[in-house]
């Protein structure tokens, strides 16, 4: 009889590893080699990136203990006290039904992230044990392609890559174009700089994405696929390749899948670091080995896509929803969400937020609930000022509109877009003009240069925004920005140009006073634009000297327990003193 052992599961995603999980894992591996009698394995990301690395200890009776913030010191104590002596270290354990973690988990609805941080992404048996590939079996068993498409249509699933196009309809188009060769493409380019949903899904549950793609291929009649993944995600690529190998061994991929005479082959293609390649036609050009320049549509990829063949292209998260929909039925999915936006959506919370990480919430929940309940607010004594949705194509939604529901159409009304799921939270130390300048700088660099207004217009907008941030703005600048924005939107071929002005337009709409202050009063209230602010220390200073120690130019002087002073001539207005001051004694003028 095999003895039941304790199990120790270490979170090994890029985020966990950046926080030090690999050292924790190596330590445990050595212990096991030295005789520690536990079953050691890895898993992906639980979404609680703010409290990584995470280690889950399962007792012999199956009780789960989730340890957070596990560093080299803590793991040694966990091994001694919990694993060897059987006394859990409660101080480092979090529970889903208590405190902050309860708030974080209560409003979530996990479909795509159900297995994330639970199963071992490198072991197909783990996925099979949670009903993995059951949807594929059903689909092949029933052998009714149109029925699959109908189910996906009825579920109301819309593309998670940003545009929100109905997935079932897209599949139906591809189904309708007769051809001896059709392709499937998985868009894993994740270009929004501030988003990491797709990376985490691929690292934590790659088989769910593969299963979705196989089902899509069967339904539309494709026999070959490409996953186009950013090169910045080496671990995601590694895990995906391993998943493909294992699925092929088990006859779930390759020729004659499950003996049903259906063939399907998947290749992984590394992207080469260009935002516009996330756009579907540019992405296809890139797979074909050319420069990734978008082309006009129609023809849409469903008709003429990769190598001129009918191609169904969906985002990572879209694919990962498919197995669940087939298993649980269209109604179960459609029961979640709003009238026009069904199911759940994964969001990547980052910026000035307490619970930075991944959350999956039902559509229809408000921004307020996501940011203040699930996300825990800023976690400092500063107020949330705005949240950026949709990256370079999106916009900044002000606090006053946080009752907006997560729904493709509702979010559009604010001038932002739902986007792929990046949410960067900003507080009063963030300058909204600088944020607009940041995004324009991004799109200006990433514009492929094909359309004149996108190429030159974004450059002109960037020049104006830079001028405003440097204190050289003139009152007419605002109107010129609006004018250029309008023209770029109307004359660009692809979504990059059509949406590039959004960050500027939304900040102009909701934070116009900040622009006016920059231009008329030569002032940046956030303390970000260096030419437009002065840092000063108030009487609240208790002389703790922390600011002086951290100042990169050593321009703060003062004795211990005495008021400190900033020497303005040497100050570069980097804001470090304000960040480190515990007394809130550093102010911006």
């Amino acid at each position: 009889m095999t003895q039941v052992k304790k199990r120790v599961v270490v979170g090994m995603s890029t985020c966990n590893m950046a926080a030090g999980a690999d050292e924790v894992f190596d330590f445990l591996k050595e212990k096991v080699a030295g005789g520690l009698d536990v079953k050691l394995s890895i898993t992906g990301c639980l979404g609680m990136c703010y409290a990584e690395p995470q280690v889950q200890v399962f007792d012999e009776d199956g009780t789960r203990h989730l340890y957070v913030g596990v560093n080299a010191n803590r793991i040694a104590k966990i091994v001694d006290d919990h694993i060897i002596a059987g006394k859990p270290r409660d101080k480092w354990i979090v529970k889903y039904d208590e405190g902050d973690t309860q708030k974080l988990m209560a409003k979530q609805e996990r479909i795509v992230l159900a297995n994330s941080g639970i199963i071992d992404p490198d072991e197909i048996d783990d996925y099979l044990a949670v009903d993995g590939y059951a949807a594929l079996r059903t689909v092949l068993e029933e052998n009714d392609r149109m029925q699959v498409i109908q189910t996906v249509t009825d579920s109301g699933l819309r593309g998670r890559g940003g545009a929100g196009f109905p997935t079932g309809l897209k599949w139906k188009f591809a189904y309708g174009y007769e051809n001896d060769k059709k392709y499937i493409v998985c868009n894993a380019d994740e270009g929004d700089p501030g988003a990491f949903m797709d990376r985490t899904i691929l690292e934590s549950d790659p088989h769910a994405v593969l299963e979705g793609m196989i089902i899509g291929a069967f339904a539309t009649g494709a026999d070959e696929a490409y996953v186009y993944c950013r090169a910045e995600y080496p671990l995601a690529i590694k895990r995906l390749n391993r998943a493909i190998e294992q699925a092929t061994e088990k006859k779930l991929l390759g020729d004659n899948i499950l003996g049903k005479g259906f063939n399907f082959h998947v290749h992984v293609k590394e992207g080469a670091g260009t935002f516009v390649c996330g756009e579907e036609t540019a992405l296809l050009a890139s797979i074909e080995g050319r420069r990734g320049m978008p082309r006009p549509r129609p023809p849409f990829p469903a008709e003429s896509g990769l190598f001129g063949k009918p191609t169904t292209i969906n985002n990572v998260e879209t694919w990962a929803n498919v197995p669940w929909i087939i298993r649980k039925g269209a109604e179960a999915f459609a029961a979640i969400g709003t009238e026009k936006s069904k199911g759940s959506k994964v969001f990547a919370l980052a910026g000035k937020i307490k619970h930075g990480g991944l959350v999956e919430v039902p559509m229809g929940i408000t921004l307020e609930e996501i940011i203040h309940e699930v996300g825990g607010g800023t976690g400092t004594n500063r107020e949330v000022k705005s949240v950026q949705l949709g990256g370079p194509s999106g916009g900044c939604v002000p606090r006053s509109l946080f009752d907006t529901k997560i729904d493709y159409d509702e979010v559009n009304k604010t001038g932002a877009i739902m986007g792929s799921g990046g949410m960067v939270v900003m507080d009063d130390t963030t300058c909204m003009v600088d944020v607009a300048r940041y995004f324009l700088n991004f799109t200006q660099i990433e514009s492929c240069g094909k359309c004149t207004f996108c190429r030159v217009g974004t450059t002109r907008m960037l020049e104006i925004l830079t001028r405003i941030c440097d204190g050289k703005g003139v009152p007419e600048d605002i109107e010129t920005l609006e004018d250029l924005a309008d023209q770029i939107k109307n004359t660009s071929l692809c979504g990059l140009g059509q949406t590039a002005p959004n960050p500027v337009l939304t900040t102009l709409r909701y934070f116009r006073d900040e622009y006016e202050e920059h231009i008329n009063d030569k002032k940046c209230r956030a303390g970000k634009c260096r030419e437009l602010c002065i840092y000063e220390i108030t009487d609240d200073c208790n002389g703790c000297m922390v600011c002086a120690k951290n100042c990169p130019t050593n321009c703060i002087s003062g004795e211990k327990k005495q008021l400190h002073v900033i020497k303005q001539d040497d100050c570069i207005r980097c804001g470090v003193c304000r960040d480190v001051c515990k007394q809130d004694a550093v102010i911006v003028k």
Partner: protein
Amino acid sequence: MTIDLALIDAIVTDKGVDPTRAIPVLQAVQDKFRHVPLQAIERIAATTEMTESQLYGVVTFYSQFRLTPVGEKIVKVCHGTACHVGGAEGLTESLESRLGIKDGENTPDMKYTLDSVACVGCCSLAPVVMVEDKVFGKLDRKKAAKIIDEYDSSGGSR
């Protein structure tokens, strides 16, 4: 510098010769040489169905490719949205002064190259720096400079 053309030929044999293979071939070349030498482009064009203009066009379009040599370790400061809001500019400034070079340059001893990237997908740990494939999160000016100290004192292996 002249390069060993046999290495290029081996890559082509491995990755393929038709024009759709341009990006994987160039990626393999860059993996080997840490940049794409012009000589490699000439050789690939001479031995495959790809042309010099196609290859050059691809290399200059994608930000991943470099035509000039880089240091042993590429230090990439993330300038994605979350990192920008979290103070990425300060990290670049700090690393510039620690390494004595500007963003985009190599140190004279060719040990480091300082570079900027847009998001490495660890936004919840912003601001972050990536050295080769390793990500360092929750940094500030001091901690960023310290990463270099650690690499220096460990002789480059961490």
